[in-house]
Each structure stands twice: as structure tokens, then as C-alpha cells.
């Protein structure tokens, strides 16, 4: 069995670059708050929602592995566990979002709500105190549950006691049910209420699929980087192959959800539903919506279809990066037209906040990865994930 694994050492240069990019992101945010408020808050919302999805998606990925008694993923489990460490940072973003409520959400202005019959009837759910309470509640739930699961997993490294696996299976059941349900609600709160008259019942699922695909893509990026650093014996080509399959499947799941929402609204053709797609189907937004499907589904799907590409570090990394950019575009199309109805805007504010958020994400993940063994060394299923190493 594997007993000890050298601690992860990220090259100092990589950390410096990540911190510098993170600082640029923060600077963009601060300068934007003073010079371009209308522009910076939607961008902040994109990055905040993106980061939240990455952290929560990783937690749900770990939970799914426990509940299904999965063997193959045990060796790579520390990567999603480390990604959940971004949730507290996302929670800080959630608190900051409180200051942007009035810029972003139409329903937060009591004068507007008073004149609008529909918003008045929705005000039991869409009001400021309840919105803030829900935002805090979601993060408390997600952080506590993911922390409990990660802590049990780390404790098992010391003595290999099976009780930790059993406890985590139970915790994971709660995490999957509560996490998925609350994330659907959160996407309704944070994104769908940008256009408070509009509603869609698959909106939560659409975001759930986007969240999961972005988490998988981020995991692939981290793992390819670790392989590049020389951990190919722990993060094997087989793991990469399996992740590539999941990435392809969830890319398809995303487009399935996208078509489900789009087709039903197109078919029924009711004004209160089509108001969402009217914006997003013509002019610049129309081209971007088309590009969205190409980036999030067609290109990754064709790239990952052959066996060989899923086993190639280079190709799978390209597919993962395309999916990460595609997920940003997906959120951009959901959020931006609600605020800038006329034409798409793209510039320093969009690039700065997104790059800064990604840099902070990778910095946090690498720091969290260095704290514990890179592989759950005493997990009872590790032998299934790394048969070659475990037998010798």
C-alpha cells in the first residue's frame, strides 16, 4: 500500500502569477465600483456565481463518489476536496453582493414593486431581508456540509478506519439532496430574479448542469497541471480518461437542458416566457447564444468523442479550457441582457473580473491541496483506483 506521498510543491513562479492576476481582478473591481457601477456589478455577479458553482459542484462530486461507493475516483478525490475550499471565498462574495442588490435587482426597489402587480405578488419571496438571509443560509449549509465531509476524509489518512467512509456516505446523502435543491433555489434568487417577471421551471437544472461541467473542467485543468509537475503515477491516464467521459456526458446534459428550456418556450410562445429569449435571439446577443451552444457542447463533444483524445493531456486540457470559457459565456448571456438590453458589451471590466476570479480560484485550490496528502492514502477503495501502486 501507499503510505506516504511527498507534499505538493507548487512552483513559486506560478503562485506569484496567480496572486498578481488576482490582484488585477480585485483592482478592476474596486476601480469599477467608483467609475462604472452599472457595468461592474453584473460582472461581479458572473464571477461570484461561477466561483460558487465550482466550489459547490466539487462538493457534490465528492458526495456522489461516496454515495455510489465509487472506486475509480478515490485517487483524484483530494482535488475536488481542495476545490471546496473556495466556498468561503465565494461566501465573502455573497456578502458583498448585498451592496449591489439595488443596482442589479429591479424587485429591490419598493417604489417599483408598489406599482407592479406581479412583483407585489412575488414580494413574499423576493424582498431584501429574506434574500440576504437565504444567501447566508445557502453558504452556511454548503460550507458546513463540505467541511464535514472533507474533514472525515482527511482523518481517515491517519488510521484508515472504515467508520469515516461510512459516516461520509451518510453525510453525502444529505449533501446531494440539500445541495442540489438549494443550488436550484440560489440560481433562481441570484440569476432568474434579474428579470423578475420571467420564470422557467428548468432554470435550476440548467444551472446545475453548467455548474457540474465547469467543476469537471476545473478538475481536469488542476489534474493536468499536477501531471505536468510529475504526479503521473498518482493521477493516471485512466483517471483522465474517466474524467473526460464525464465531461463529455455532462456537456451533453447541459445542451439537453438548454434545448429543454429553449424548445418549450419557443413552442408555447407565451409572451411572459418568451420575454427572456426575445433579448437573447437577435443582433449581437443572438450570435453569442449560438456561440454558447458551440463552445459548451459541439466543440467539446466532437473533441472528446474518440478514445485517444480523452487520454491526451493536451487535447483534454484544451477541451476543459473551452468549457470553462463557455461556462463564463453562458452566465454572461443569462445575466448581462437583463441589465444591458440593447447590445453586448465586452471590455476590460469583463476580462479583469473573470481572470482575477480564476486566478484566485487556482491559488486557493493549490494552497488547499498542499495541506494534506495528495491522495487519500488509507481509503479502503484506493486499491481500485490505483491497482498498480497498491499491489507493489
Amino acid at each position, binding site marked *: 500500500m501507499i503510505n506516504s506521498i511527498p507534499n505538493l510543491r507548487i512552483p513559486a513562479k506560478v503562485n506569484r502569477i496567480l496572486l498578481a492576476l488576482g490582484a488585477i481582478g480585485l483592482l478592476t473591481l474596486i476601480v469599477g465600483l467608483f467609475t462604472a457601477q452599472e457595468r461592474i456589478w453584473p460582472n461581479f455577479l458572473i464571477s461570484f456565481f461561477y466561483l460558487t458553482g465550482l466550489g459547490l459542484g466539487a462538493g457534490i462530486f465528492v458526495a456522489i463518489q461516496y454515495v455510489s461507493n465509487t472506486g475509480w475516483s478515490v485517487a483524484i478525490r483530494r482535488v475536488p476536496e481542495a476545490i471546496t475550499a473556495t466556498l468561503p471565498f465565494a461566501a465573502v462574495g455573497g456578502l458583498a453582493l448585498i451592496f449591489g442588490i439595488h443596482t442589479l435587482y429591479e424587485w429591490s426597489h419598493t417604489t417599483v414593486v408598489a406599482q407592479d402587480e406581479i412583483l407585489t405578488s412575488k414580494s413574499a419571496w423576493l424582498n431584501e431581508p429574506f434574500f440576504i438571509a437565504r444567501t447566508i443560509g445557502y453558504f452556511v449549509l454548503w460550507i458546513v456540509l463540505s467541511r464535514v465531509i472533507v474533514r472525515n476524509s482527511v482523518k481517515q489518512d491517519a488510521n484508515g478506519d472504515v467508520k469515516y467512509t461510512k459516516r461520509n456516505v451518510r453525510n453525502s446523502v444529505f449533501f446531494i439532496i440539500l445541495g442540489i435543491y438549494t443550488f436550484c433555489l440560489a440560481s433562481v434568487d441570484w440569476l432568474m430574479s434579474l428579470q423578475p417577471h420571467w420564470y422557467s421551471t428548468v432554470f435550476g437544472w440548467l444551472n446545475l448542469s453548467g455548474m457540474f461541467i465547469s467543476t469537471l473542467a476545473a478538475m481536469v485543468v488542476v489534474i493536468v497541471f499536477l501531471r505536468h509537475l510529475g504526479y503521473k503515477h498518482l493521477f493516471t491516464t485512466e483517471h483522465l480518461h474517466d474524467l473526460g467521459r464525464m465531461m463529455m456526458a455532462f456537456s451533453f446534459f447541459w445542451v*439537453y437542458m438548454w*434545448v429543454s428550456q*429553449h*424548445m418549450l418556450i*419557443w*413552442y*408555447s*410562445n407565451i409572451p411572459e416566457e418568451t420575454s427572456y429569449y426575445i433579448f437573447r435571439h437577435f443582433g449581437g446577443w443572438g450570435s453569442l447564444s449560438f456561440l454558447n451552444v458551440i463552445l459548451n457542447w459541439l466543440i467539446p463533444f466532437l473533441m472528446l468523442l474518440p*478514445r485517444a483524445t480523452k487520454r491526451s493531456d493536451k487535447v483534454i486540457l484544451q477541451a476543459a479550457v473551452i468549457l470553462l470559457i463557455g461556462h463564463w459565456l453562458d452566465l454572461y448571456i443569462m445575466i448581462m441582457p437583463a441589465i444591458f438590453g440593447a447590445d453586448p458589451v465586452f471590455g476590460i471590466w469583463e476580462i479583469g473580473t473573470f481572470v482575477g476570479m480564476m486566478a484566485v480560484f487556482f491559488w486557493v485550490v493549490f494552497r488547499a491541496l498542499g495541506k494534506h496528502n495528495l491522495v487519500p492514502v488509507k481509503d479502503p477503495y484506493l486499491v481500485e483506483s490505483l*491497482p498498480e501502486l497498491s*499491489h507493489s
Partner: protein
Amino acid sequence: MDAQLFLGVFSNEDDILNATRATNAAGYKIHDVYTPYAVHGLENAMGLKPSRLTWACLAFAATGLMLAVFVQFWIGSIDWPLNVGGKPFNSLPAYLPVIFELTVLIGGLGVVFSMFVKTKLYPGKTEWVPYPGVTNDRFVIALEQRDASFDSGAVQRLWQQFNMLEAKRLAEVTL
């Protein structure tokens, strides 16, 4: 085709994997390896080429896709145009569910039946088991023995390193 098979019987997964790897490396022609369940890594150990079934699957799926597009277009726009909710007769969003289903259905069924044809499986085929325990707890390598230069002694010595239980010759098997 008639051939003689030379069988080596083993009792566990690790032994059969190592024995298969060594046999393949020594250059013997492996007819097949029989195991009670799917053993991971066996296809690499046997040196099998990647399956061509994926191409059959792709071809069937593409057929299904084109069929679905054509059938819906022809019925909805040419043969029997119906006004549904004021939509254009030829509208792609309405076609998507059927396109998806037919692609998956014909791709899935096609690849399964391709496998049946290739492996000569059909209803009522009499089953053939090379060794009685192979459906329970025994792992068997079968070598093809075609010419006089086949040295069964050398093969047995090779297999004995991997805790072989028994070696056996099957004469004149119809494959």
C-alpha cells in the same frame, strides 16, 4: 474452422493478468482468455487492438440522425404540412427531440446487433465452455496450436511461474 486449443487454468485475477501479459510478450498466439467476470486491463494484457465497434456505432448513429431529419422534413414540409401553433412548416427546434431519440436508438441497437453478428451470437446457439469452472472461479487462457513447432512444455513452464493449476489440451474444437 477446426483447431487445437491448449488451455492453462488459473485461480485468480492477478495470476491470469500476469500470465496473459507474459504469454503475449513471449509471442504466442492467444486465442482467447475466459474469465468468470470482466477483468480490468485484460484487453491490454492480451494485446488486443481497439474495437472497431465504435465506428459501427458512429455510422449507425449518423444514419439515425439523417433519417430523423429527412423523415420529419419530408412529412412536415412536403407530404403533409400541418400548421402547428403558427410555426413554420420546416422548424429545426421541433425536430430536435426526434433527432436525438432516433440517433440514440439506431446507434444503440445498431452497435449491439453488429456485435451479435461479429461474435456469431444468435438465439438458440448452443453454449460452449472450454473448461467447467470458467463460469465460477477459474480463469483460463486458450492458445491456438496450429503447427508442429508448438512447444507445450515451454508454455507450461512459463505458466507455472504464475501458479498454474492445470494445463489441458482440447482437440479438434470447432470455433
